[in-house]
């Protein structure tokens, strides 16, 4: 896993050095090329996790950007129209994430989505308390978060 990632980085640096143009887009192109070469070379290996994980990371980034833009539009509409549409509330959210790194990443992503704000984490790292702006039903909110951001994040990390 780590070995393949380092090999991929090395291949993309070699690509940048050979082509001689230090642009960001050239580095990304070299990374994709190296990923493709490694994928072809490692087809018969048993450990294929790296090649599943990189597309998942990219799709997670796009999913998160889409969610962020949608939530931003909703908040912006609420800010500029005279009537208040929101129903705020503080929700208890039981975590599936176990290690501190997973909890840290998950709470960063939850906090970056507009409308949700982490208030506190319990002493035994099992629940977090989230302040939500648009809350119709606490159970439904917890279910959406579990099947959305947390499931995708844990698929990448584990």
């Amino acid at each position, binding site marked *: 896993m780590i070995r393949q990632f380092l090999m991929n980085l090395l291949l993309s640096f070699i690509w940048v050095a050979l082509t001689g143009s230090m642009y960001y887009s050239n580095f990304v192109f070299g990374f994709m090329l190296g990923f493709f070469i490694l994928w072809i070379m490692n087809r018969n290996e048993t450990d294929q996790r790296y090649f599943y994980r990189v597309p998942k990371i990219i799709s997670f980034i796009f999913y998160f950007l889409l969610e962020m833009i949608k939530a931003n539009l909703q908040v912006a509409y609420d800010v*500029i129209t005279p009537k208040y549409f929101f129903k705020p509330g503080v929700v208890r959210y039981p975590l599936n994430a176990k290690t501190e790194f997973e909890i840290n990443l998950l709470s960063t992503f939850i906090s970056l989505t507009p409308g949700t704000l982490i208030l506190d984490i319990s002493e035994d790292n099992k629940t977090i308390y989230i302040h939500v702006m648009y809350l119709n039903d606490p159970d439904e909110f917890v279910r959406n978060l579990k099947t959305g951001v947390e499931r995708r994040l844990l698929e990448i990390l584990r």
Partner: protein
Amino acid sequence: MINILLAIISTIGALSILFASIGILRMPDFYLRLSVTVKASTLGVGLLLICASIMFPDVSVTTKAIAIVFFLIITAPIGAHMIGRAAYFTGTPLWKGTIVDQLAGMYNKETHELESDPSQVPPSEELNEEENIARTEDETD
């Protein structure tokens, strides 16, 4: 072509910062203000920096923009979390339209420890919780 794209992205960034600043004035409650401000300003600054890195075809500009966006994304949620926790702990009232508060009464007032299971909270804390809700309703009305 690239100019039109840059104009669109930077307009969205500037507008989201504008909405964040209007939100500071218009939101009825401290937590909603915090919630609106932090995210919209992160998005706005991020979009403007992306524009700058596309606009100037220079490696140093791009690396600086990436570093600034990275540290902004790491630090802004932590700052919001610490401010929100401090505000809740010192008893800043929630807006009167708040429909549910599952954090109420979960703190141990002396040790500042937070319980994860509501059944673990001793009954004396429950009394405090009811008093707390009554107090906040009086203050926000």
